[in-house]
């Protein structure tokens, strides 16, 4: 007699990317990551289908799906919707049970999250309606320097000095950057300044939430080595290395919750 395999999916539809993670029982089985489109239902399904294809599965093979991110309100394929704050906590806890603090920098917001040993949120703070420190902010900056978003980190780390930035507002920082370029400042030094200005701003979120080791960095911006370095300096911490793409942590947490909810609902034992 063969035991039935149980698959659980998390789908995280963010402002810039839609992500999906499928767990087989407790292990990561497949993932999917696609750019978000205008239609958040379609974006979520694309990410989910990519993960299903990668794993050779069909949607009906899934025992339970949890939707998260801003697109969770339009996720008819999901059994349940949970905010990405809770999901990032669960995702980080899944990878590193010793993590107590998460810095999540996504496409349109950033969060400071403190969690307990079970991955439950103890406290959190978010940026207030300001794009500073988000993927969108860095996209705009990459546009100013006409480089790919992925190149910003390495470029910043090659800086020989730090050019101070007075503004972290996306629009004003863009015009300030253009002025600095016109003055002859080197792009890598300006980027170094931008990353440190953002890191200082993010560290303000932790003034209330507090920082306890281990510290985890999730979200798309976590792929930026220059930002990671600037945050480590600003917060005086060492960030643990993620085993998977940090942009998938929200979807991973959603999949972990899908496993837990479906067990509570008696769908498997």
């Amino acid at each position, binding site marked *: 007699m063969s035991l039935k395999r149980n698959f659980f999916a998390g789908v995280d539809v963010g402002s810039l990317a839609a992500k999906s993670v499928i767990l087989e029982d407790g292990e990561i089985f497949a993932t999917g990551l696609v750019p978000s489109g205008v239609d958040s239902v379609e974006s979520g399904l694309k990410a989910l289908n990519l993960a299903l294809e990668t794993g050779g599965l069909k949607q009906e093979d899934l025992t339970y799906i949890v939707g998260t991110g801003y697109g969770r309100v339009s996720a008819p394929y999901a059994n349940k919707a949970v905010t990405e*704050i809770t999901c990032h906590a669960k995702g980080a806890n899944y990878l590193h049970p010793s993590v107590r603090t998460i810095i999540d920098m996504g496409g349109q917001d950033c969060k400071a999250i403190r969690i307990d040993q079970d991955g439950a949120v103890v406290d959190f703070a*978010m940026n207030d309606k300001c794009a500073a420190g988000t993927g969108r902010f860095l996209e705009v900056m990459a546009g100013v320097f006409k480089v790919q978003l992925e190149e910003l980190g390495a470029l910043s780390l090659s800086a020989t000095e730090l050019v101070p930035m007075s503004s972290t507002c996306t629009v004003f920082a863009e015009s300030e950057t253009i002025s600095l370029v016109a003055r002859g400042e080197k792009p890598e030094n300006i980027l170094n300044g931008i990353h440190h200005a953002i890191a200082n701003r993010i560290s303000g979120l932790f003034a209330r939430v507090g920082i306890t080791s281990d510290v985890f960095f999730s979200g798309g911006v976590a792929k930026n080595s220059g930002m990671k370095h600037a945050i480590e300096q600003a917060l005086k911490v060492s960030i643990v290395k993620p085993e998977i793409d940090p942009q998938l942590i929200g979807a991973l947490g959603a999949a972990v919750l899908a496993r837990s909810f479906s067990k509570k609902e008696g769908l498997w034992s």
Partner: protein
Amino acid sequence: MAKREQYEYPSELREEFEATDDIHFRDGSRATAADIWHFMTEVAPKKYPFAYTQKKYAGGRLSRDIHLPSAIKHNYLLLTMNDRINKSRENGAPVIFVQGGQSVDPYYAAGGIALRPASVGIWARGRHEGLGLNEEVVRSHKQKEKANHAISFEVCQSAGYEHIQEGDLPVDMVAPYTCLRCSDISYGVEAHRHGPNKAVKLMNIDYPMRHQADKPWAVTYFAQNLRRLTSEIAKRAGREVTDEDLSKEIKLHNEGRRLAIDTAELWWSADVPPTNSVDRRALYQMGGMEVHGDPSASLTVLRESNAYIRDRVKRGIKADGVIDKPIRLFVCGSCVSPNAFRIEEAGAIIVGQDNHWSDISTLVKEEGDPYQNLAHAILSYPYEQSVEGRAAWTVEQLKKSRADGVLFLYKWGCNTQSAIARMLCDTVKREIAIPTMIIEDHEGGSEQSEQMLNRVNAFIEMLG
């Protein structure tokens, strides 16, 4: 708005509703339950389609707890505000623009009608018929943007002043208790003082701040301000005002306050929520006797509702659509209400709000000089004390309401609440270890963005 998108009260409810009490108005007239049913099912859906929206994100939807008469009657009184205020003005009652969080006993004692900024907004809204939700929001935003320019920066309760300056709302006086908790009222008062429309009299009822209730000079000073106020209103109403008039009014308003306190305590004592968040808020607000622009009407609905809540609590009846054991949120701060429908969908319920509860839960002594008594009560409002004093009172309310968490909300540009929020939340955490969350609201209109809802939902998940 297409008919299918509008909420409709179930017709099978009609008989049950029509057996409920009439509403008695201050001028001696009344509305029977049949009149109210007809207005809410036949007239208002065409006159004010925005109120019947079924949009999932709209925070101002009608309560669906249809067996609670006040759920329908409260909305009836809001939707008839324009007609009723116009009628009262025609009968000689001056309308006075006041501010949030203050009592209104002296205004009515002198023959006037006191309207807070939110009520002025409801009155203004009622003058535009046939608007769907989006059209109504666009109208309201336009007025607010004009007001922001007139006042010179973004404040929250600004639109009322703009209506007065433009003369499209026939307000007779601007006379708030100034220096109360709201910085924006003071800016608005200054904008009105310097605005081109000088026809509407400005009278500041000067409120001495911070620990003044125990200082005899401060009580006497404020009592003198109240005498100036009633004298001026009475002059405009073409009548005399006596101490006896104020004493009678205080007794009437005290009945409302007592009923609101009793209703809140019943609600808090219940094992399962006897109303939803929207109806709970409406019920306690009625105790302030201002919300409908007619204290007698508010009192009628509150008396009837109190009996319903008592019965529901006694019999363990839960409000329609509410879950058994929701997360209990207490909301602090002024001028922002979270979307209660979405909060309930997320598994929580709002068990209290400090805004207005401060003045509603402050009873006025009934024996002795009514001006001195009223002044003393007003200077005792817990919300207007030092942050430490307000926090201590808030902690008491949190204990009574058995709150699981505190949401402190305030408007962008609110200098007072933004300064208080962190200190108050820190005190709450220190004293009773309840999680708190502060959100600055940048939005207007009837729908809250996903940004706001996301934060609130995450907070509820954290408490769960």
